[in-house]
């Protein structure tokens, strides 16, 4: 009876529904990751500023995002912001905003670390060779910074994919919610449904994240020097 529970995954439209739920998960993660990469690079460069006020503001933003759990941020925006502004915002939109804020902060810190760890003599050697400022960025600084940023950025991406599982709590219909619906629909005929459905979603997340973290690990090993 237990093994037959696996059938619930293939009954009717169930598999297609799970996949469309997964698509929502991937969509949120993808948009948030891309936006975080763009804003994160900008934020990281701003963070390298020597202006004390700019530095303090950036630091505050980063620490505030880091110290408060993402789920709390989701609640703050989903319940707090909509209440304060008197409008209803979709959970999906809210989650993209929150994940982008978080990703921007984390990505910014990675970029800042990479930029500030670049030895000064790299720029100076470039200048003494007679390169222009643009050329120094194009051929010397950016390629080296990218190497230092990329493994961390990819790790961040897997973390963001994993964290998208939280959006179910603010009412977004993604893979986990679809899973719950399927379980509720089939629990009478298949009591073992939760085991199989949640097990399957567990597996889905794994095959989503594992390749990305392998890439990060490879890059790290290859560029470590």
């Amino acid at each position, binding site marked *: 009876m*237990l093994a037959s529970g696996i059938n619930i995954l293939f009954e009717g439209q169930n598999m297609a529904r799970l996949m469309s739920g997964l698509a929502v998960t991937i969509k949120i993660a993808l948009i948030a990751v891309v936006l975080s990469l763009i804003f994160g690079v900008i934020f990281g460069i701003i963070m390298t500023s020597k202006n004390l006020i700019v530095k303090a503001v950036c630091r505050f933003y980063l620490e505030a995002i880091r*110290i408060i759990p993402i789920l709390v941020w989701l609640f703050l925006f989903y319940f707090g912001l909509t209440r304060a502004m008197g409008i209803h915002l979709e959970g999906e939109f809210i989650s993209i905003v929150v994940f982008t804020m978080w990703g921007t902060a984390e990505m910014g810190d990675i970029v800042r670390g990479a930029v500030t760890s670049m030895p000064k003599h790299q720029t100076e050697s470039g200048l003494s060779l007679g390169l222009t400022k643009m050329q120094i960025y194009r051929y010397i600084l950016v390629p080296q910074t990218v190497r230092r940023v990329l493994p961390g950025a990819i790790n961040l991406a897997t973390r963001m994919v994993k964290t998208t599982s939280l959006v*179910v*709590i603010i009412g977004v219909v993604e893979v986990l919610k679809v899973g719950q619906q399927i379980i509720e629909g089939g629990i009478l005929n298949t009591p073992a449904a*939760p085991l*199989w459905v*949640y097990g399957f979603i567990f597996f889905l*997340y*794994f095959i989503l994240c*594992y390749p990305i973290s392998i890439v990060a690990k490879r890059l790290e090993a290859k560029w470590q020097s």
Partner: protein
Amino acid sequence: MDWLFIERNIPLYIEATKLTLGIGALGVVLSVMIGFLCSMVRYYRVPVLNRVVGIYIELSRNTPLLIQLFFLYYGLPKIGIKLNAFVIAVIGLTFLGASYMSEAFRGGLEAVNKIQEESGLSIGLTKPQLMRYIILPQALAIAMPSVGANVIFLLKETSVFSAIALADLMFVAKDLIGMYYKTNEALFMLVVAYLIILLPISVIFSVLERKARYAGFGN
């Protein structure tokens, strides 16, 4: 902001904070212990176990805690394993945390210079002595910042336990919003409660990190 409402509901938050801290502390301690064992298994490349630990680490690091909890809480009873929510929460947090801790310790162990090991052996230390007096003190100092980051990460992850019906901070906040529609007050207290838990820990670890830096040798 309705301060009276806040004052009246502080006891609820205190109870929830205790629960969050209880699960968090148990989870962190177990994670550190199991994580340390796992890192030892990987360091000495214990046959078979090394493989098992490797698979466990990949599984746990590449799946979200929420899904792990759902699987444990709703799935396992179907094959006759019934545990209460508190135990599930601790097991879930440990399952997630031990792999992160193991990676942190492994990073520390691998960063210890090979010369240290060889010098130790050449002055006649036994393998356990080498580990106890030479490698571990240095490895732990190096691993300290990542262990600290993991502790904070794990405490933040406790926020998902409301999903398996534990009356933690998120649960209380959601309840108050649902019952009284006091959104601002409930969210305000939620943030304050998390700050009270996490800020001191964050400060403690940054102090420890600065101290541990002195322990570095040869670099």
